[in-house]
């Protein structure tokens, strides 16, 4: 007798979001909202726990970018201990952080975004995914898998584990770099660099076919925020914050991350669990800004590595400041190049191999802020502790949060341009997804599923009546 096995619901998808499109009386799109419908609660659940536990605990926010949370958290703990961490410890954290950048960008580009470029926005969704890509262009899919694997291996070899690596600790690193690990990574680097260059060249060829998307995928003026080094160079681990206008004018420079509350406010909207950070001097919602690879390449003076700087120069030739969120994809590929080159530079620096990788101290300060650049943008961890070192308060601003205003604006723009009737089509749904995907949001923090996000779109008339609804489970 035939049997049926039903798996319901299908789990292990990260991130839940919903989009509502509002129509006016003529059937034209009036407004659109991007809702994030989940609450994590890490800021609350950490209260009462020792600060030394925070990097490991906060890493659990995400399985894709745990290193970002580890780094920001460990830096906040360094501030609580009031220690200067050893150079080798800082360099190793930088390398793991860049390994994370490479693997996360590779995931976002190859596994999630590239199927749209390879198959087209209107292609059959059954084919428009990494599996379809494997059939159509196996070498491209393999490049993606290989690049991601390399990033993950760096994290494992230096961090101690691929996901939630334990070696990043308050005060530095728990293990020094071995010569064997250094040589293994250096041996494999050239192959990864070749993949990164090949992919960038391929993507640049594809971009011409997406002129309409470039024009309407979150193409609007906002400010851009990110870390820069002392000379304005791109920076992912330390440094100070810079904010530029949509024209490229520097609005704020060398802002100390410790004082983030002076210039970043957090607004709340009833329709989303994700907060809406904004630039305080301009108020809400005018003070919208974007973060992430596009912001970093828009605001930094240079990368400081030859291949990435050449790629950045070509990238920036298009326009002075790139305003379309479609450019996030190319920015991601340039950052992969940068990440690989920088890892090489750091590994070749003898200071990185020093045995002294950790500073020890108890709680010396009751408040600490740690800021780093996650793949998706500026990440802020802010902790307060009592005299015994137990957490009493935490505030986290996750990279995806900074882009919340821009993502909402982008969804409106795409909806207004592509939704012309009261019936939703697959191509339209995919473009709305694709514009969100350009930001590579981490909603839980992440909305990554193979090929498609779990997403629902509601179409509502002027009286709020539900006209149509499309769901992707």
């Amino acid at each position, binding site marked *: 007798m035939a049997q049926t096995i039903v798996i319901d619901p299908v789990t292990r998808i990260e991130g839940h979001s919903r989009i509502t499109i509002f129509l006016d009386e003529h059937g034209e799109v009036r407004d659109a909202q991007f809702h994030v419908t989940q609450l994590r609660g890490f800021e609350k659940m950490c209260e009462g726990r020792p600060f030394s536990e925070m990097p*490991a605990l906060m890493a659990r926010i995400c399985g894709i970018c745990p290193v970002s949370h580890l780094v920001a958290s460990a830096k906040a703990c360094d501030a609580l201990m009031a220690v200067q961490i050893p150079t080798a410890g800082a360099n190793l954290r930088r390398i793991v952080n860049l390994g994370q950048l490479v693997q996360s960008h590779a995931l976002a580009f190859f596994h999630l975004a590239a199927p749209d470029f390879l198959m087209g926005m209107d292609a059959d969704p059954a084919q428009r995914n990494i599996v379809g890509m494997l059939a159509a262009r196996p070498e491209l899919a393999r490049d993606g898998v290989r690049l991601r694997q390399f990033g993950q291996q760096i994290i494992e070899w230096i961090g101690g584990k691929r996901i939630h690596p334990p070696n990043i600790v*308050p005060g530095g690193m728990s293990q020094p770099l071995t010569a064997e690990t250094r040589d293994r990574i250096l041996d494999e680097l050239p192959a990864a660099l070749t993949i990164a260059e090949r992919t960038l060249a391929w993507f640049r060829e594809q971009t011409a076919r997406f002129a309409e998307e470039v024009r309407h995928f979150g193409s609007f003026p906002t400010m851009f925020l990110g870390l820069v080094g002392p000379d304005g160079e791109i920076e992912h681990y330390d440094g100070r914050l810079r904010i530029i206008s949509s024209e490229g004018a520097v609005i704020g420079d060398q802002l100390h991350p410790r004082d983030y509350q002076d210039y970043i406010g957090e607004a709340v909207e009833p329709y989303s669990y994700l907060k809406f950070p904004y630039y305080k001097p301009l108020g809400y919602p005018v003070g919208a800004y974007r973060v992430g690879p596009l912001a970093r390449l828009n605001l930094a003076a240079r990368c400081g590595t030859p291949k990435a700087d050449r790629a950045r120069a070509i990238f920036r030739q298009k326009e002075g400041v790139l305003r379309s969120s479609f450019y996030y994809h190319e920015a991601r590929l340039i950052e992969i190049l940068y990440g690989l080159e920088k890892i090489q530079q750091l590994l070749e620096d003898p200071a990185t191999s020093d045995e002294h990788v950790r500073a020890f101290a108890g709680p010396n300060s009751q408040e600490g802020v740690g800021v780093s650049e996650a793949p998706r943008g500026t990440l802020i961890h802010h902790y307060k502790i009592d005299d*015994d070192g137990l957490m009493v308060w935490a505030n986290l601003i996750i990279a995806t949060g900074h882009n919340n205003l821009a993502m909402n604006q982008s969804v409106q723009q795409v909806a207004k341009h592509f939704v012309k009737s009261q019936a939703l089509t697959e191509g339209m749904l995919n473009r709305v997804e694709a514009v969100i995907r350009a930001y590579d949001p981490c909603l839980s923090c992440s909305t990554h599923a193979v090929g498609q996000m779990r997403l629902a779109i509601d179409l509502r008339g002027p009286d709020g009546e539900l006209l149509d609804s499309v769901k992707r489970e």
Partner: protein
Amino acid sequence: METVVTLTLNGEMVSARADQTLLDVIREQKIDLPTLCHMQGLSERGGCRLCVVEVQGAPRPMAACVTPVTEGMVVRTHTPELEHQRRLVVELLLAERNHVCAVCVVNGHCDLQWAAAKLGVASVRYEYLHPDLTMDASHARFVLDHNRCILCTRCVRVCDEVEGAHTWDIAGRGIKTRVITDLSRPWGDSPSCTSCGKCVQVCPTGALFEKGATVAEMTKERDFVGWIIRGRTKREWTW
């Protein structure tokens, strides 16, 4: 002259001294029996019930650590029923407080985690109680986390019997039971604590740990109890 008794252990005839416990004999025979509250060199408590064995004629399973050997005893250590009971004990321990291995200082070095793994506890069938428990981080060097305490009382016994300070005690009853220092004053204010750290080392879980330790960093050194006892009783100072 020592009295020798003979008993049947898992079908084998075994000789033992009459002053031995069943657990001593089982361990001598290299039979793997999990324990949590037992610690060589400390008095027995018989509290964790992981070492339960079947003794022929006894109405219920007996804790091997507190059962003296007797002549003609017939004992079985690994029946399906006993294995079931041991799993049950571990599941109840896991459900009672907040044991989150992934972010624990002794992840990978924990007696409770090892016991769960060895007994094949892949999931917990009971509803987690998620109690809202505090931590005591007032001591300069050590931290007490009630969330991870399984009330084995190893800390209480080592402090009393080996260190001689008797800082630790048990307060409350049933589910409200807690380990306390000096009549429940903060550990950091304890006048009796010598800060020797023996309690931290014998603690089977991450309930007692060194301040500043991060996930999986805390390993525990337990052999010292045996060295001290041997030195004290036999004047042999080797380790």
